[in-house]
């Protein structure tokens, strides 16, 4: 296998780097709303890397058992800061992430990361409004 542009190796390299940023963001210690912005940026990185993999015709391998995944307990419903309605969007996107990992291809997974990024950004934007800090999701 060659290392030319668009090879499986190059696509894998981008996905590996995006994974590293995503894992660091999920396990991050940044205070809100920076934590959510970092998550959003990392999700956007995953979206781009996965779209690149799709364009490179990289072969897809589903991840059985991903449905219902949890990223981190502090992102679960209960004690979260921010508007509930926006966290519901985040939760829905997270549910879709598990479904997409079991699903059919990179494009679907990339779209879910786009939704996750948008949802996290919306919550972060809301948290930048002082009145929203006290609301929980």
């Amino acid at each position, binding site marked *: *296998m060659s290392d030319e542009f668009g090879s*499986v190796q190059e*696509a*894998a390299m981008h*996905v*590996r780097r*995006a*994974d590293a940023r*995503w*894992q*660091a963001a*999920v*396990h*991050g*210690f*940044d*205070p*809100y709303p920076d*934590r959510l912005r970092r998550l959003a940026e990392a999700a956007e990185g*995953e979206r781009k*890397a*996965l779209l690149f*993999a799709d364009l490179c015709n*990289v*072969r*897809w*391998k*589903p*991840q059985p*058992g*991903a449905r219902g*995944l*949890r*990223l*981190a*307990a*502090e992102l679960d419903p209960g*004690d979260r*800061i921010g508007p509930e309605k926006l966290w519901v969007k985040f939760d829905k996107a*997270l549910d879709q*992430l*598990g479904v997409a*990992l079991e699903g059919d291809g*990179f494009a679907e*997974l990339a779209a879910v990361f786009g939704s996750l990024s948008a949802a996290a950004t919306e919550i972060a934007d809301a948290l930048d409004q002082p009145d929203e800090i006290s609301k929980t999701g």
Partner: protein
Amino acid sequence: MLGVNPSTVRYWVSTGRLSAEKRGRGWVVKRDDLETIMAQRRRRAGRPQLVEPLADPGEQRKGLSMLDSIDFSDDA
């Protein structure tokens, strides 16, 4: 970390309840600060088992590696 779920520590730091200092690529929290919060939780609850069990090691795996979605089977 002192028997506290790492997710719980991240939540405390994220919400500003616990201070953390970034050092290189990692974060450091003061043991005294952490023990203070844990003591507050124990006092509030009146029972020691509020120290949470460690997270299931498998919990943090799913959804973190998109590389696992690449089929390398014929590339060896």
